């Protein structure tokens, strides 16, 4: 059974509720279970709001600020991942203002990211790359001579995956996967502000930390920051098969 390499990501987990809510997204009537995020409601009706920190295996976090939307009668630009649908809500996911904001955020991301897409192990399977495309980022006016993490040391201690802090976008998906999916709490963010970076334990290498190597963090990573060594060696897969674990 051949499947798409990457399953569709609805951004936030499915909510189960007896009550349904109908709202308007980009002029379309959409009906979803109460408690669903605007992002997921949009995705279920085929509207993909840009996102980086959201993934449907983890609770919404709201940090990347790409998924901002406009809601009629509400001030500001709420994040569609952390905002739940409400009856009669009128949501717009694509406006010139939103485009400008998303491009502004993307410009910041890329101002602290290596420009090695072509030789990067995640090439072709990188959400940051996708979002740069989606937001239409064409230049980074900040230049690349400012503060950055490009020379951060790679952690290759784990036999199965590498951690390259230079590619980290601090989306916390790995940290949250370790907490929510695995329940081990081995990862955290150390430092604050611009210094923030994923850290196993207290700035330990992965192998010295509490990490149990379940791979949930690697699975959750939207970039090449946490990457399987086999993918680094062999490149991205060309097809996939669903089978059952033999352990």
């Amino acid at each position, binding site marked *: 059974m051949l499947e798409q390499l990457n399953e569709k990501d609805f951004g936030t987990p499915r909510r189960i509720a007896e009550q349904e809510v109908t709202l308007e997204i980009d002029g379309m009537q959409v009906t979803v279970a109460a408690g669903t995020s605007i992002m997921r409601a949009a995705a279920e009706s085929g509207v993909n709001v840009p996102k980086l920190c959201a993934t449907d295996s983890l609770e919404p976090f709201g940090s990347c600020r790409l998924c901002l939307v406009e809601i009629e009668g509400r001030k500001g630009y709420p994040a569609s991942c952390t905002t739940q649908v409400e009856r009669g809500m009128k949501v717009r996911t694509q406006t010139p203002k939103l485009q400008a904001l998303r491009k502004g955020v993307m410009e910041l991301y890329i101002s602290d990211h290596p420009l090695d897409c072509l030789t990067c192990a995640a090439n072709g399977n990188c959400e940051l790359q996708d979002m740069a495309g989606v937001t239409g980022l064409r230049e980074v006016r900040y230049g690349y001579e400012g503060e950055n993490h490009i020379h951060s040391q790679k952690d290759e201690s784990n036999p*199965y995956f590498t951690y390259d802090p230079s590619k980290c976008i601090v989306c916390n998906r790995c940290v949250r996967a370790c907490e929510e999916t695995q329940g081990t709490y081995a990862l955290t963010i150390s430092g604050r502000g611009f210094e923030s970076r994923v850290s196993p334990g207290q700035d330990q290498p992965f192998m010295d930390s509490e990490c149990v190597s379940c791979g949930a963090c690697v699975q959750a990573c939207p970039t090449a920051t946490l990457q399987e060594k086999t993918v680094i060696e062999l490149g991205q897969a060309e097809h996939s098969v669903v089978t059952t*674990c033999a352990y």
Partner: protein
Amino acid sequence: MKGSEVVRMVPDKNGQANEGHSCVKGRFAWGYATHKDRILKPMIRGKITDPWKEVSWDEALDYAAAEFRRIQKKYGRDSIGGIVSSRCTNEEGYLVQKLVRTAFGNNNVDTCARVCHSPTGYGLKQTLGESAGTQTFKSVEHSDVIMVIGANPTDAHPVFASRMKKRLLNGAKLIVIDPRHIDLVRSPHVRADFHLPLKPGTNVAMLSSIAHVIVTEGLLATDFIAQRCEDKAFQQWRDFVALPENSPEAMQEITGVPAELVRGAARLYATGGNAAIYYGLGVTEHAQGSTAVMGIANLAMATGNIGREGVGVNPLRGQNNVQGSCDIGSFPHELPGYRHVSDSTTRHLFEQAWGVEIQPEPGLRIPNMFDAALDGSFMGMYCQGEDIVQSDPNTQHVTAALSAMECIVVQDIFMNETAMYAHVFLPGSSFLEKDGTFTNAERRISRVRKVMPPKAVYADWEVTVLLAQRMGYTMDYAHPSEIMDEIARLTPTFHGVSYEKLDQLGSIQWPCNDEAPLGTPTMHIDHFVRGKGKFIITKYVATDEKVTRKFPLILTTGRILSQYNVGAQTRRTENVQWHQQDILEIHPHDAEERGIRDGGWVGIHSRSGETVLRAKVSERMQPGVVYTTFHFPESGANVITTENSDWATNCPEYKVTAVQVMPVLESSDWQKKYTRFSKVQDDLLKNAGEGTGNKTPDIKIKAVAKSIA
């Protein structure tokens, strides 16, 4: 995938058993499948002291068939048998038992579930009417109280442990009944509300005293019992557990657990809302394993915690397909679907379908096979995908039995410990090389899909078909789906199962038939499978394995996260970086008394034998109890374990062995012998064929060198 090369393995978001999660083994430790140690050519030899000779498939199969026939002619029809693996697919297991019951003409088939969860099959069948867990894994999301008995989910069932922790983080209460301070007792943001650190071997005493509290403090679910359970059996059971001798205060001396803790835990279990029991091999692998399983079922019935989401009796299985291998008739007394061979209707059904006469008497269990081999009445064995030498208790007894046999056919992907005693080696295929199904602890049948051609030409099921053919019995299948169709046709609980439906639904929890066309997530909803639930009296009987002055400590065994069972797979991956050798965990007090220091060599003696491991001084242990794993053959964990076993099912008493532990300077006699024997077998293999890449595992050799250093 890239062509037929695996690039990475990731958990499937839509996977109904794992819901997008995996552990280090499934996610990363698949490199063994293409490891250079894989044996890819069939081999034969006359005696186990002869060098291996690479031969064609035809020659190997002809030789095996001829040997089996010769043995049967000389020693009788019942002198050969087969062993089904819990690591192979349902279809493969089904074919092995079919081969035994047709081509071999006897019921001498058994499975490694014998040594892990056979008491579950027996105990749950007696009380509830079906030999399986009652819930889905997802059910835990609805539990308010989770009771973990004799299981260490964060190490042995990590994916389920994560789901359990998720629920615990959201407020469910936790009771842990385990001699060891396992991670769940206290880990980040999770803490057991009650930890009852009982002495190994006293589960039944503990369960009876919990029942005593429930009965005597008026915590029984009387309506549920009145409607759903056999009244007379209930009353007898109630009167029994209410006896003062079963009170926590009376049992305190036996279990070593303060009565107040037991009372608190019992009250929480009975009154805390939806209460679910999850248990592992720490319940089954005892002299009273079956009794403890029944004791657990009693608790669930007594509190009405069965038949809906969030509750139930949930065995955590030992291997990927333990449930499946049991389901498809791999026990000597049962045809597929847990139907006794003495039942003529069932037998007749299969006789019709298979065109042979089936023996009405149960065949030999694994330990009986060994005994019979030493008696000279059991001389040939077809062993598919299981390493009985490393995994079965009392290794010396096992190897003596195997050495006495005339033809052992081992079918495996590696030259395992059992294969060193074999005469025919048939190369196996990994799960990546074949189609089939696995059934997990929640009775969930899931598809195994071929992603690459078999490295040694044939998938395992095809090898069994070919062997049957050589023995004069024709099995005609074009694809494993046809084997499943046959199982479905002949087994009421599988009537509705087909590959087509599996593709549609993703997976199916049996029973799946006309009454439950989409399968059965939760069992025993309105009534028990056996009609009314049956309480069974569980009288505590101390094991014969008692601590003495000579053997003052109790050894209990288990596993750790990075290694899987006998380690044949995981030892051939980078997982060895986490666990390079088995170690003996010992409480600081016991260590101090014996002058044992952390990391030092210690000798462990039991009535059965002696081995040497490195010590780890740890407060996870309680004083008087030591612990080790059995992932490395040279550790010889099972050299020490005894042939004591469960009274009902012969499941070995792995969890209780009286031992003495002392600091030593060199490896044990057994280890020295083992090293010599392995070296000889290594050499016998090296000359088998040129340029075939056949080689004994170098990791193993490294580890051996370490244990002698």
